[in-house]
């Protein structure tokens, strides 16, 4: 089941929209033109009414976030675009910008108008070297055509866009860590309160939005909140990008209606499990979300339903493991990610993820002891919700959900003194 009508991906087959002329030809920047004629508060209202929720993982209502920005502080306001996309299993932001960079600029400019912002910063992860080049080219084109700059479309309003490249740190996808990184500090998260809406970039009111979130905004302005709500559920309206990867026939970025059952995404969009095998485990929203199993194939992919199933929709990064994949091995690798990316500020994340990689590593290599399993279980409890930010909750999610659903695999590692799947299958599964 494809979306009734593709929205974010409707021009993906047309490479001409990458350039400004091609984008104009498909009604590009019409939303910005319309927004220039609206009052700031009305822009906020239409986005609020649409029910658009942040697509970067947290799912916070976007219009509400914009509404939190105080306007009479005497300080400039800022829009910061979070293009740090680093959640394992997610790459839809990457492709969205590769294929239609101007839509991101248009959405960001409308956000700027909504909060009276004159400078938009786009924080792009360092590894997206080429995507940054594509984006910078689009920015230059937009300036040349007057869609950005001192006098946007002759309105007398200024909107500047500065592209800032990251340098390899997943934690910089966390809003306040991103702000610190952008300010030239170490990318460690900040205490809240104060919240970024009030004291964000350079201690000024700031809105931070995900790329996919902002790319929904031009359509909401031109087509209206009701149109946006034609897809999706009451609480999760609209369409969402999902990335399907791992053991599937057709890995890729897909746009779905929120509320689509996972089974449909797996079998119809991604072509089913690779080689006709059976699914063992899958992450709904990347490695930071508790993994689900074959029992959850009918879970609807919206924020509420996935939460009810014991996980989170997050970024919609669906990684699929099959019966030949060892969950302990996968969990070890995922926890290693968190240990690498931990900023080091707080004890449970820094020490807990480091310890977890060591114990899990021993378990996977067959040097696990019986007491290691209750130890991992306690470690998961001692990390979850105990850290400064949610990065550690990702670690805990991996540990807790893998133990919950695959305790038998852990026990087998200890009992056999080896990984049962590596013992049975000689050579590396590919």
């Amino acid at each position, binding site marked *: 089941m494809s979306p009734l009508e593709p929205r974010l991906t409707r021009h993906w087959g047309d490479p001409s929209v990458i350039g400004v002329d091609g984008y104009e030809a498909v009604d590009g920047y019409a939303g910005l033109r319309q927004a220039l004629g609206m009052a700031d508060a009305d822009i906020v209202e239409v986005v609020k009414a649409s029910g658009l929720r942040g697509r970067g993982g947290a799912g916070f209502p976007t219009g509400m976030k914009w509404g939190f920005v105080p306007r009479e502080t005497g300080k400039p306001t800022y829009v910061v675009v979070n293009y740090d*996309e*680093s*959640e*394992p*299993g*997610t*790459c839809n*932001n*990457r*492709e969205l910008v590769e294929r239609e960079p101007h839509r991101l600029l248009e959405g960001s400019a409308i956000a700027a108008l909504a909060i009276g912002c004159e400078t938009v910063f786009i924080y792009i*992860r*360092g*590894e*997206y*070297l*080429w995507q*940054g*080049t*594509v984006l*910078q080219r689009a920015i230059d084109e937009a300036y040349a055509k007057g869609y950005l700059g001192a006098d946007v479309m002759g309105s007398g309003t200024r909107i500047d866009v*500065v*592209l*800032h*490249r*990251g*340098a*390899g*740190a*997943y934690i910089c996808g966390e809003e306040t860590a991103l702000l610190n*990184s*952008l*300010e*030239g*500090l*170490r*990318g460690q998260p900040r205490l809240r309160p104060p919240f970024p809406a009030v004291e964000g970039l*350079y201690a000024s009111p700031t809105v931070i939005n995900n790329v996919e979130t902002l790319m929904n905004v031009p359509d909401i302005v031109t087509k209206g909140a009701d149109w946006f709500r034609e897809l999706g559920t009451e609480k999760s309206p609209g369409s969402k990008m999902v*990335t*399907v*990867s*791992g*053991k599937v026939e057709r*890995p*890729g*970025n897909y746009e779905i209606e929120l509320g689509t059952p996972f089974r449909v995404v797996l079998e119809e969009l991604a072509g089913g499990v690779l080689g006709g095998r059976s699914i063992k485990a899958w*992450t709904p929203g990347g*490695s930071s979300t508790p993994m689900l199993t074959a029992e959850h194939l009918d879970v609807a992919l919206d924020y509420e339903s996935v939460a009810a199933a014991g996980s989170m929709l997050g970024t919609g*990064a669906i*990684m*699929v*493991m099959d019966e030949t994949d060892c969950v302990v091995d*996968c969990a070890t*690798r*995922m926890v290693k*990610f968190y240990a*690498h990316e931990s*900023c080091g500020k707080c004890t449970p994340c820094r020490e807990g993820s480091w310890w977890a990689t060591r114990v899990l590593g021993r378990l996977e290599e067959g040097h696990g002891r019986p007491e290691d399993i209750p130890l991992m279980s306690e470690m998961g409890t001692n990390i979850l919700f105990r850290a400064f930010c949610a990065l550690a909750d990702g670690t805990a999610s991996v540990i807790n959900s893998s133990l919950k659903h695959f305790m038998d695999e852990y026990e087998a590692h200890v009992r056999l003194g080896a990984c049962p799947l590596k013992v049975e299958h000689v050579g*590396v*599964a*590919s």
Partner: protein
Amino acid sequence: MALFEGRAGDEARRIVERYPAAHRRSAVMPLLYLAQSIEGMVTRDALREIGEMLGITTAEVEAVATFYTMYRLRPTGTHLVNVCTNLACKLRGADAVYEAAHREAGVSHGQEMSDDGLFTVHEEECLGVCDLAPAVQVNFANHDGVTPERMRELIGRLRGGDVPAPARGPAMPSFAAASRVLAGLDPEPEPALEEVPPA
């Protein structure tokens, strides 16, 4: 002799001017890329000069530089080969590709760069190419769906002085050249393979 002199000095100043005047510290990240593009790595002197330019201490600059994986503070090969081994790529065989990279490039685990100064190999976290796994970057240019055989081919061609075209976007002829683009500057007009002096 100062690093940011002449053209590099002008470029550094332009980078600083991207940010509000009262907050030029934001420029530390692109300035680190600029330094890296000139010297093939971030040197002690570069850290100090960047600090002087921004009115912060060398320690503050080094604190930022050491936080990220894409700034190299130790001698680096001409080419940086990044192999993602996170879950989505691992599920599609990335571990074998990673081993192949070490083998073909002649870099043992824990070694900063190959003896011939050509290659540094990084095991990477998710590079955002999960749909085209296993993902590899050579100087941050994307090579998708790489197999151990393809890795052998890539390394071989690089060793031969040829920069293979990536799957998407233009090739980056060296780690230093890529750093220049990451600093937000146009690539050098005629990119050539640059030699990094041995440590």
